[in-house]
């Protein structure tokens, strides 16, 4: 049982993790204060014969304190979150140099569409790889999620990215991987009886390896 987040590997994961730990500390303090207070009170003020409780109806001062402190705290958390949210999900947050991919999502597969040699999506030399996304490290990637049947959700735990793919809606999301390696992609929205197995892999290559992989794939696509 651990409250530590698993290792992360994307540019904005650090910001999200920081907010998580910040809230963990704040709520942790609140948790300890309240639970310890309850424990203290139930021990200290347990019924004893011949004793009467104090007749106290309330305290305006106390009410003001425990209205104001949580209010200020949550507003601060909200303000701190706003920037991160905007950076990750805001309408114009996708970096201009991001590598675009279309992702055709259906029960229960992810088809990742690559640009091909011409560097343009939506042309004849695009190629598709089932359940495999290959990307270079330290370069942003933008995914255009295209759900073909029901709602799915693109989730890479290591990148702290999650975005629903809704049929009929053009939804894009982006991320930038910071560590070379292989990471699992999961579907996070119940999408039917194969939902639990809607798993794919994202492979983060070094820049050189990525170019090599692309060249191999493009050659293979030409043969077909």
């Amino acid at each position: 049982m651990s409250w530590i987040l698993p290792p992360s590997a994307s540019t904005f994961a650090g910001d999200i993790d920081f907010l998580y730990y910040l809230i963990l500390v704040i709520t942790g303090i609140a948790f300890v204060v309240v639970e310890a207070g309850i424990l203290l009170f139930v021990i200290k003020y347990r019924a004893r014969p011949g004793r009467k409780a104090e007749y106290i109806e309330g305290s305006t001062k106390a009410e003001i304190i425990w209205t104001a402190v949580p209010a200020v705290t949550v507003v601060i958390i909200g303000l701190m979150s706003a920037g991160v949210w905007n950076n990750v999900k805001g309408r114009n947050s996708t970096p201009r140099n991001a590598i675009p991919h279309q992702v055709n999502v259906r029960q229960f597969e992810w088809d990742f569409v690559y640009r091909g040699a011409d560097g343009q999506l939506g042309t004849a030399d695009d190629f598709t790889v089932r359940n495999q996304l290959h990307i270079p490290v330290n370069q942003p990637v933008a995914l255009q999620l295209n759900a073909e049947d029901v709602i799915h959700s693109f989730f890479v735990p290591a990148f702290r990215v999650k975005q629903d793919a809704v049929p009929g809606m053009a939804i894009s999301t982006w991320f930038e991987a910071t560590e070379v390696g292989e990471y699992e992609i999961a579907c996070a929205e119940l999408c039917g009886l194969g939902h639990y197995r809607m798993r794919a892999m994202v492979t983060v290559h070094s820049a050189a390896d990525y170019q090599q992989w692309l060249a191999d794939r493009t050659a293979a696509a030409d043969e077909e």
Partner: protein
Amino acid sequence: MRRLGVTSCLLALIACGGGDGGSGSGGGGGAAAAAAPLGNGSITGMVMFAGSPPANPAIDMAEEAVCAEKFTNGPTDPIVSVTGGHLANVFVRVTGGLPAGPYPEPAAAATIDQDGCLYTPRVVGVMVGQDLVISNSDPVLHNIKAVPTENRGFNISQPREGMTSTRSFNTPEIMVPLECNVHGWMNAYVGVVEHPYFAVTGADGTFSIGGLPAGTYQVEAWHETLGTRSGEATVAADGSATLNFTFGG
């Protein structure tokens, strides 16, 4: 519950609205379970493919290793399966000339297996009401989704190796597609016929329809991408007629 019944009927009507007819004639199938064969005649033949067959697409099974390793040369999708000019996976059935039913039901259930993330056989025929046993020989999840237009569809899963499910169809339909959504390339076709006079060509392109009484029959051959071919054969009592079809070219 009554209201629900009405609703289901409503649904069925909507679902049936797309097709034309065919819904009235399916009733006779179930009662004929133990009927004796109507005759001993047969139609046999061969289905050929003329010319050079189209290449079958390769399947990317990289993310399904347990299936990929069942193939030595890399899996392809056997859409047009031609060996030495012989075309497999053609569904051949009698479409006319039969006496009125009831017809004898095939003794055994029809089977279809999922092996190496492909359906084997890819094409299978069943009589109305006959059991279709679907089995899984892969240690991975397959779902089997039937998307008929005349029958009630289903969508079931087999998460483990060795599982079987039995289903049947109650209305004739050429063909009921089966698909697996975990592996989008997996397709199979079930021909549902109101009588037992159908066959599927094997790898050698041959088929044989037995148990026929003497008569002249219209026969149709169906292939999933190449369309249909029709023919006619006259069977003498206890005799055997030959009927060949050619696709392509």
